[in-house]
């Protein structure tokens, strides 16, 4: 320990102000405070401070994601064994999956760190631990067989365009992880469009994801019947809840996502208002579409609210992406509206849109864009109240 401390103390002298390496100070500070908590003192103002800092806040989000990683790895192995029709132990399945997950994770972090550190040095801002969360989120939104170079491209795009060009964490407009995914979605549609099955199988292995089934039915029927008729995967509600279906690495197991949500809400990090209102928005819209489904031959309209909740990555998106504090609404009233509209838009994009089977990514990005506008109107009402009083 003392040895490590000595290394940091010595290297710290190199990056002091006025020294040739002073440009590297943000990088040194970030590394130094990872190992040893900062001994920065309060000056005036509050002389005592809460023990929560950004490092721990961001670390907690990463903790909430770890179960999704483990299950994601297992699921890759499980679906692979299903495709090959062989028996494999739980551990073997997980290890098999990890051989897919870990490379994606490592590439994401390398790309993310390069971008974040470069910008921290050039723009002279501190390294914000927020990039760790972005990098931890990106692999979970990827199909397991995504080419690694695409991951590198996507992550760099997400961090730079989604965040750094706006000034870094705290001033970004779009969620960087979703920006990365959206970029890949449109740039490399053959790998990540979301309608073909996302499982690691033998060559030529294919099938449809849950959302693609009612989107492109052979013959019109209700979504429930179409799911029941699917023979390749078990699309029962329970199976979709437990996540043993193909999908992006981290989004399939809803139980773990709900667990992560409860953890983040309990810690006071994620906004329960956004999660609750987006679910309300989704359920209301889905219900409305169910009522209208008799007038149309679009099988997507027959998906029940519960199925909407369990299919695709809505829950993952709303818990881990929509609640991102910087890009969501900043006012509590605004959060209700913002979340509700994410739910509404998700169902609209999913159901009455022939091109994209999944809508949550676009819904959140669209609402990221409108969040400042929502806040503007919420704040205007406060201003009007104050003006009315001032007569």
């Amino acid at each position, binding site marked *: 320990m003392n040895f490590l401390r000595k290394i940091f103390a010595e290297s710290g002298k190199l990056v002091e102000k006025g020294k040739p390496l002073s440009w590297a100070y943000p990088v040194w500070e970030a590394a130094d405070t990872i190992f*040893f908590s900062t001994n920065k003192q309060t000056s005036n103002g509050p002389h005592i401070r809460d023990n929560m800092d950004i490092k721990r806040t961001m670390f907690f989000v990463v903790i909430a994601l770890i179960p999704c990683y483990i299950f994601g790895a297992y699921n890759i192995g499980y679906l692979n064994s299903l495709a090959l029709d062989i028996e494999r132990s739980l551990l073997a399945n997980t290890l098999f999956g990890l051989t897919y997950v870990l490379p994606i994770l490592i590439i994401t972090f390398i790309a993310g760190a390069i971008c974040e550190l470069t910008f921290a040095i050039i723009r002279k801002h501190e390294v914000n631990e927020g990039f760790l969360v972005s990098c931890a989120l990106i692999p979970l939104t990827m199909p397991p067989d995504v080419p690694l170079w695409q991951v590198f491209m996507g992550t760099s795009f997400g961090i730079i365009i989604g965040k750094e060009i706006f000034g870094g964490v705290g001033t970004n407009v779009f969620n960087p992880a979703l920006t990365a995914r959206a970029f890949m979605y449109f740039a490399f549609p053959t790998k990540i469009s979301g309608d073909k099955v996302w499982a690691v199988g033998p060559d030529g292995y294919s099938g449809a994801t849950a959302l693609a089934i009612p989107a492109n039915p052979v013959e019109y029927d209700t979504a429930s019947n179409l799911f029941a008729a699917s023979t390749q995967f078990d699309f029962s509600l329970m199976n979709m809840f437990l996540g043993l279906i193909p999908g992006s690495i981290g989004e399939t197991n809803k139980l773990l996502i709900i667990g992560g949500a409860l953890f983040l809400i309990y810690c006071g990090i994620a906004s329960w208002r956004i999660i609750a209102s987006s679910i309300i928005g989704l359920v209301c819209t889905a219900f409305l579409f169910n009522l209208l489904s008799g007038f149309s031959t679009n099988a997507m309209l027959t998906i029940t609210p519960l199925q909407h909740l369990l299919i695709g990555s809505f829950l993952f998106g709303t818990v881990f992406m929509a609640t991102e*504090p910087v890009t969501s609404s900043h006012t509590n009233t605004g959060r209700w509206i913002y979340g509700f509209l994410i739910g509404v838009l998700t169902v609209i994009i999913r159901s009455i849109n022939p091109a994209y089977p999944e809508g949550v990514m676009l819904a959140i990005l669209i609402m990221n864009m409108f969040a400042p506008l929502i806040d503007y109107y919420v704040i205007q009402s406060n201003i009007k109240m104050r003006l009315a009083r001032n007569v």
Partner: protein
Amino acid sequence: MQKIKIKKGHDINISGLASREFTTASNPKFVSISPQDFNYVKPKMIVRENDKVSMGDALFFDKNNPDVKWPAIASGVISKIVYGERRAVQEIIIAVDSEIEENTSSVGNLGSSPKAVIKEFLTEKNMWPFITQRPFNKVVNPQDEPKCIIVSLADSSPLANDLSFSLNDKKDDIISALSVLKKLTDGHLYVAVRGNNFSYLSDYDFINLLQIEGPHPSGNVGVILNKVNPINQNEVVWTVQGSHLPILGRLFSKGEYDFSLNINVAGPAVTPSYYKSRMGVQFDCFSKSLKLDKVRVISGNVLTGKKVEIDRFLGFYHSTFSVIEESHERPFIGWLHPGGKSKYSVFNAYFGSNNNSYDFTTLQNGSNRAFVPVDAWEKVFPMDIYINSLARSIEANDVDEMEQLGIYECDEEDVALCSFVCPSKSDVGSIIRTGLDTIYFDK
């Protein structure tokens, strides 16, 4: 009596609360008054070093407002005038000499005198500095007409001086102070109390008694005003420190200066207690109570107080010395720490509840980062103001928007808890101060 319940906020569970009894301390040899304690004051000295002064004699006045003069808070000799950068007066130190004859004068019945007479009296007695105003938290301009006057006897800040104890035997002086203050405004005289403290005040019709409930900052005058009578643009509200009421009351009723003050010394690094002492007292008098070597002495409370050296003095508006440990600890991977007695957080981020009292130190507990709005400020900020947007408008130097968002209602002390909880370790108080300064110097 009006009840006011404040839900948002937080009572920090810091150790070192003084029990309700007095300890005797050595008599202060020196007291001081520092022009730095008053916002926007340009002091011009009236006395010089080695001058003899009696209690109440004018020491200096404000160049911007020559009617406002500062009284000597003890009889004695001006032992030192400390100058800072560009010869700004930092501190005037008086060597206390009880032999010097004290100023006394007869007073008529001020309680039934008209406003002008009372104002004249305050000018003559150099007592205006005891009355401050919102917005800007500065000494009042005697020509102003306040829309109301508010006094908080319910200080909710951590380790605060419990006025229901320290003003226990001052009933007559408090009443006489309040009855005169009421004459200074055509509006209400609000007095905020907690629970059944000061219940005798409810017998007086001229007092608008407010019963405050809820966590800090519920006892702050800014927060209470936001609930009962918000400050609008171009309005001023006057306020007096609860602990100063007996000082004013005694002068109003008997014509005597008496700057004695019951103060408390509290915090994790001292043996906490109350002391019968006086305004501007030197911390040296209480240094026996120190439990540690490396300490930070704070004049005022741990949230908004001012760091002072160990041989320095109590601020003009303060009645508490808070003492905490100066820590330089650097725990290994501290951000992974599971929790325990040293980790206090309003987030549920550590094992172990916040029920124990915690030994806070001067550690900031994290590095400064860009602001991430995780709703932390809003959790502890009870006013009907979008504090996050207000802070942003101040950073953007947009005066119109600051006014629209209610900057006049805010003061540093009202947002101190926001800085306490902020995971990005922002100093919201100094942001608010910057905004107020911008507006003040604009006009």
